[in-house]
């Protein structure tokens, strides 16, 4: 029965909800609320209430990988779904550079936007400009990559701490609490990367038999993932018992490096199709915590609620799921790995999106 429920949840996650019924949609959000580590802190947004139609600004940290592209398009596609409410959506892309993003935000403000959605390049560098806007009474929604302070109306993501923790617990339990691991993070300074690492470290603290040999950044690049993993294999060789990646983007590169070196140890990642398919192809043990790009669409929906004066949660968790090739005592697959990996889809395919055909990057 439990498995049946999990399969239903996963099917909804895969997009059935776009056409599916209320019950399935409700179940997803129930699940998200169950995962929420605290009670919801609601923000009163009456002071931001305005008459429609609205002008929305979206400042994206960058579109340097396919997840970011999917998420970017989610924002655009969702805005298009509300022609009666949204007059104009201005979009900027900072190419991963904090200084450019600060300029982008100033440009968006000069255009007279009513609300700002930000995916911050780094949580420290963007904090002052967003805090200033917040203190001036301007509504800001942060999404996926937040800022250091809580000077915003709402932060939309799929708990990065939970994903980091989940991956690490699976790895530690798969290694039966004993062994050496290496860790590959994404962008240095990015809020999501910091939070995933923090979640992983919390879990790690309960497994004193697990030793971290090295932690390196990979900028969510498959190329860097492979280069860094190759060097780690050379340094530690058979001492490496497991690999913790906070995304499949570098995970797929790390897999390549291990295959080339004839290594096969458990690895963690996310729902990048190339990662999931290569795990099957090369018969690795793996876990993935999905990080749905649909959070871009949710940020737009939330922005509309703010402008209509509805109360919104300060931290808005988008539903997600977990899958593993091999389950552990505490980490069970919501859906079997083999059902999620889709060899007929491109490697850069991301499950957990709500993009209509027009907006799909294929």
């Amino acid at each position, binding site marked *: 029965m439990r498995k049946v429920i999990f399969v239903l949840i996963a099917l909804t996650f895969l997009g059935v909800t776009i056409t599916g019924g209320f019950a399935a949609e409700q179940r997803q959000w129930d699940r998200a609320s169950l995962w929420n580590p605290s009670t919801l802190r609601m923000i009163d947004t009456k002071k931001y209430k305005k008459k429609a139609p609205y002008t929305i600004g979206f400042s994206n940290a960058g579109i340097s990988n396919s997840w970011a592209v999917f998420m970017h398009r989610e924002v655009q596609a969702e805005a298009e779904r509300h022609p009666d409410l949204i007059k104009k959506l201005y979009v900027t892309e900072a190419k991963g550079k904090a200084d450019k993003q600060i300029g982008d935000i100033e440009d968006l403000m000069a255009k007279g936007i009513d609300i700002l959605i930000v995916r911050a390049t780094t949580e420290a560098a963007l904090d002052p400009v967003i805090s200033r806007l917040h203190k001036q009474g301007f509504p800001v929604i942060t999404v996926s990559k937040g800022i250091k302070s809580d000077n915003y109306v709402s932060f939309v993501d799929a708990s990065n701490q939970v994903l980091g923790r989940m991956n690490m617990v699976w790895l530690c339990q798969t290694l039966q609490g004993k062994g050496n691991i290496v860790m590959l993070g994404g962008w240095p300074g990015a809020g999501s990367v910091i939070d995933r690492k923090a979640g992983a470290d919390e879990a790690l603290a309960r497994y004193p038999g697990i030793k971290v040999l090295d932690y390196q950044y990979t900028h969510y690049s498959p190329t860097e993932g492979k280069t860094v993993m190759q060097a780690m294999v050379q*340094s530690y060789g058979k001492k490496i018992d497991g690999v913790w990646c906070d995304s499949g983007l570098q995970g797929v590169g790390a897999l390549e490096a291990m295959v080339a070196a004839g290594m096969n140890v458990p690895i963690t990642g996310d729902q990048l199709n190339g990662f999931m398919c290569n795990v099957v192809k090369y018969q690795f043990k793996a876990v993935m915590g999905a990080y749905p790009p649909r959070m871009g669409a949710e940020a737009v929906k939330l922005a509309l609620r703010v402008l209509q004066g509805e109360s919104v949660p300060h931290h808005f968790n988008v539903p997600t799921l977990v899958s593993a090739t091999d389950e552990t005592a505490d980490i069970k697959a919501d859906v079997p790995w083999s059902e999620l990996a889709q060899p007929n889809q*491109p490697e850069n395919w991301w499950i957990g999106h709500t993009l209509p055909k027009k907006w799909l990057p294929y």
Partner: protein
Amino acid sequence: MSSGKPIFEEYGIYIFLIALFAVSSLLSPAFLTIENLRNIFTPAASLGMVAVGQTFVILIGGGALDLSVASVMATVTVIVSMNTHGQDALLFPVSLLCILFGIVVGLTNGFLVTKRGVQPFIATLGMMVIIQGLRFLYTKGAPKGTFPPFLRLLGTGNIGPMPISVLSFAFLLVLAAIVLKKTIFGRKIYATGGNIKAALISGYNTDLIIISTYAISGFTAAIGGLYLAGWLGISDNWVGEGYEVDSIAAVIMGGTSFEGGKGGVIGTTAGVLIIATLYNLVLLLHLPLQLQYIVKGGAIILATSFYARKAAY
């Protein structure tokens, strides 16, 4: 006092490379192993290919450089993955298309520099951005497809102990060295770089020579992109990111001057090896990211200043 100076001027880069290898071996026991050397040399072969083309451009002098190479590499990667669908049978025609693309980009760069008088920095920077935009239009930001097995073999396979990509680079290197040192075209490049006015008076078609060097750079960038794609095995919009700067650094470290007219591809190869070794060493030493940048940047400056010819003021 002065007897040692010419040795450093002539061979400083090679002395530095040997010293770097020696120090690296002492610092990390994992460094001097066959597998690790393969890890260094295999992707370095792609950088080397790009840097060879970059050498041709920089030899022209007058601040000539090609910033569009990394963009060409990334675009070639997505063209191959999206058009071969992982089939060997389509690799050859699609590779030809990629090479043609690289050459067309180079010809456009050369045309802008010579016929329109656009500064090389601006012309190639603009081209880099245009290609990025075209690539994003083409892939819609998320490239699809896979690479044919034969391309993977070229990128990751070995013949005996030697990676195929390294052997391919060696072939390209020899070819480039012959062109530069043994052909009239090569002599014309050095003459144009040494003194463009004198070259013009001598009846050389300097515009054609300059355009040709950019075309060569586009060609080698396309080839480098193909090998890097084969090595990586994953289609990504940013394959080769940073290679534009790394290739220029390798050329300058290798003794080719921005003033043009002096230097060559052998020195460039030493520069490539230094950069690839440094990138590998900082990881083997498990340095935190901040220190990695400091060490890499510091060593590149040190390598260049170690043997740099002092300007006569």
